[in-house]
């Protein structure tokens, strides 16, 4: 199959024509390749490769590097399909196809989209892009300006393109597209611009829209089936995406969809999370603001919602619910269950039954979390499934123009988009986290289409500031069956890069100051580190080429955590509140996108 991809275009056409619905499902089982941004449909981010082991990883060394030619934040990771690596960049969203068979890693083709630069000022948190998708012989790119393009994987030729949104209304794209079966899924960003979030399925062959499900609005828009779709085991009421808002506010309600998606082919369900309700000023939007901050389970073919779970009703802190949904089958108290595990921005690690949406575990994955005492797990309680808030940290109760202090976690969450991995051998989830708190002051804000609609200012600082601690990250191992931290490594900075675990017993991740690290999955013991040219906010991947295992990661500091640094500052202490906390990053690293590929010496 890989050879076919690289042979004549006739063969590729034949392949595309013959593409079966489950081609991608077969491909993702081959550990030599990395065919999806999430590793596989289940978002496990685990590789069966095991040439690199706990014994020999200390000898790991860079094998080759590639400059992307772009500054600013490099999130996501390249794909490896056969002997070709597909690499993306932040805005302007160039795509490179690199020949892995060639000793010089020659560029097979390059795609350079032409985008109106007026999209840049409507991107909230740096001009990041989280990567590409592959399916049906095509490479899919979701450009910043919301254009979804399908490129011929062999030649880079544009096969079709479709506009998924309108940047003049603040709608942008940062997420990777995801191919599941015969459809490509894209979300939308712009929660700080009053964008009403949606997920859209397009036919991989034609680019034809198959369905679109909104995060709020009438049932016809949300694709919720009243009486049938469930929330915590109970049927959802009619038009709940309107009735939990005041007036027409749902039309600018946020709930954007810029994270990672997963898919269970047996259940035929797609899982993802929706983001913060707009504005950040909770006083201006009374109600539960459904279905922002929600885990969604939708039918792949129709988009109809099977179940939903709103984690943070009426958000007061910008705790977007967009982080990845990891589909792991686990032994829950002696019973094998199909679970979904999610580490939310709000600091709770959730384990749900992914068939029914039943809430099984909700525990803090950073002990610093203080905005809620716990999630109510009592099924007979009126507040079942809701977080039990602490008045002192409620920006709603403290009100507008009041600076609510020392809320943990900060707006960027105990964990943001940086995806975790799951190692079935140890039963551990390996989670990159933030250890940051904030002061948050909401204020009145007015909505104009295409203009910022933020309504709060905030400052962030290390969670242990009151104890004289300065570290702002932890890399942890989590047992999602019971909701407990198994081990935790302090990191000087928030861990903003995604983890990958392997059958070599190793977990890899990158750090903001620029280290690629390898730790023992069982114990967390650090076995290797290497300082790459810039801070890492990208996700680690691993693949095999010519019989050798490689580990690849993009460095290029930026994103929300690195925004102050991306802005070239060194001494400031603000910036969607992020900078003070990260100011000293400038003592360690500077901007610039580089891919570094590691291997054991011959």
């Amino acid at each position, binding site marked *: 199959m890989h050879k076919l991809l690289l042979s004549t275009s006739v063969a590729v056409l034949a392949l595309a024509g013959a593409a079966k619905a489950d081609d991608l499902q077969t491909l993702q089982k081959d550990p030599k390749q990395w065919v999806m941004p999430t590793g596989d449909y289940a978002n496990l981010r685990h590789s069966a490769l095991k040439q690199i082991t706990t014994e020999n990883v200390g000898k790991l060394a860079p094998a080759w590097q590639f400059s992307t030619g772009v500054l600013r934040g490099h999130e996501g990771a390249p794909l490896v399909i056969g002997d070709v690596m597909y690499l993306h960049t932040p805005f302007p969203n160039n795509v490179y196809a690199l020949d892995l068979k060639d000793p010089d890693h020659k560029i097979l083709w390059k795609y350079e989209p032409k985008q109106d630069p007026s999209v840049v*000022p409507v991107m909230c948190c740096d001009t990041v892009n989280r990567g590409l998708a592959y399916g049906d012989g095509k490479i899919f790119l979701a450009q910043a300006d919301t254009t979804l393009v399908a490129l011929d994987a062999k030649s880079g030729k544009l096969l079709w393109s479709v506009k998924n949104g309108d940047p003049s209304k603040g709608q942008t794209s940062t997420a990777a597209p995801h191919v599941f079966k015969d459809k490509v899924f894209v979300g939308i960003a712009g929660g700080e611009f009053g964008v009403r979030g949606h997920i859209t399925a397009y036919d991989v062959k034609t680019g034809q829209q198959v369905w679109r499900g909104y995060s709020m609005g009438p049932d016809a828009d949300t694709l919720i089936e009243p009486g049938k779709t469930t929330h915590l085991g109970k049927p959802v009421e009619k038009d709940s995406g309107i009735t939990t808002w005041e007036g027409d506010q749902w039309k600018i309600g946020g709930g954007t969809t810029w994270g990672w998606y997963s898919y269970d082919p047996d259940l035929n369900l797609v899982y993802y999370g929706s983001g913060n309700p707009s504005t950040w000023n909770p006083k201006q939007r009374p109600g539960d603001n459904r279905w922002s901050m929600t885990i969604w389970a939708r039918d792949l073919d129709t988009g109809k919602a099977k179940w939903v779970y709103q984690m943070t009703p009426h958000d007061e802190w910008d705790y977007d619910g967009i982080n990845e949904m990891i589909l792991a089958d686990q032994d829950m108290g002696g019973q094998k269950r199909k679970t979904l595990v999610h580490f939310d921005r709000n600091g709770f690690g959730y384990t749900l039954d992914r068939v029914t949406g039943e809430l099984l575990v909700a525990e803090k994955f950073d002990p610093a979390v203080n905005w809620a005492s716990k999630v109510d797990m009592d099924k007979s309680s009126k507040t079942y499934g809701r977080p039990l808030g602490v008045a002192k940290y409620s920006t709603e109760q403290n009100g507008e123009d009041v600076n609510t202090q020392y809320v943990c976690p900060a707006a960027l969450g105990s964990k943001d988009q940086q995806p975790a991995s799951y190692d079935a051998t140890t039963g551990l989830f390996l989670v990159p986290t933030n250890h940051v708190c904030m002061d948050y002051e909401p204020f009145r804000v007015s909505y104009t289409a295409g203009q910022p609609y933020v309504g709060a200012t905030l*400052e962030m600082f290390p969670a242990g500031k009151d104890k004289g601690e300065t570290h702002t990250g932890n890399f942890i191992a989590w047992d999602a069956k019971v909701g407990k931290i198994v081990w935790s490594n302090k990191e000087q900075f928030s861990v903003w890069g995604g983890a990958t675990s392997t059958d070599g017993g190793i977990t890899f991740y990158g750090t903001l100051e620029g280290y690629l690290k390898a730790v023992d999955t069982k114990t967390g013991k650090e076995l290797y580190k290497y300082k790459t040219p810039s801070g890492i906010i990208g996700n680690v991947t691993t693949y095999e080429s010519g019989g050798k295992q490689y580990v690849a990661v993009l460095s290029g500091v930026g994103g929300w955590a690195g925004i102050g640094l991306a802005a*070239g*500052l060194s001494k400031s*202490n*603000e910036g969607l509140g992020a900078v003070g906390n990260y100011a000293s990053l400038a003592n360690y690293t500077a901007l610039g996108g580089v891919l570094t590929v590691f291997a054991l010496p011959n």
Partner: protein
Amino acid sequence: MRSSLAGALALGVIMCVGSSAMAEAPGDPKAVKSTDGKYFDAKGDPTFNVGPDGKVDWYTFSGYRRYHAECHVCHGPNGGGSTYAPALKDSVKRFDYAEFAGIVIGGRQNGNSVMPAFAENKNASCYIDDLYVYLRALSTGAIEPGRPGKKEDRPEAFAKAETECMSQK
């Protein structure tokens, strides 16, 4: 506050065309008078005031808040600039008040750098004076980067003008 702003904006929009040649340096930012908690320099342009105890005027604080909701994503925290947009704490050393207001309202483009027009964005257009005095305070080192520690109370005139401006259709 808002009527004088409207005048300035009209001027600003005109000046925006071919503005660089017409740019006039702002005068000494020292406050020489104050009306209803708002401070003005000798030229009559809005400016900051920092008391001996470090207490900032309300408009400087308001500018800090609005800047870090509307502007900082491109222009960097504390007016420090980024690879996409200039450091406004330096720009306000070159732009006078009218030109600053004109650019905020009318926008401008320079190659791949795009400053959107904020005429319709009340979160910026109702607070041009606040943004200007905040950046002026930063530019002269009168305030440290970050959230100002102490601030004067919110003047009634501010609250009234804010309500009027934000509720305009």
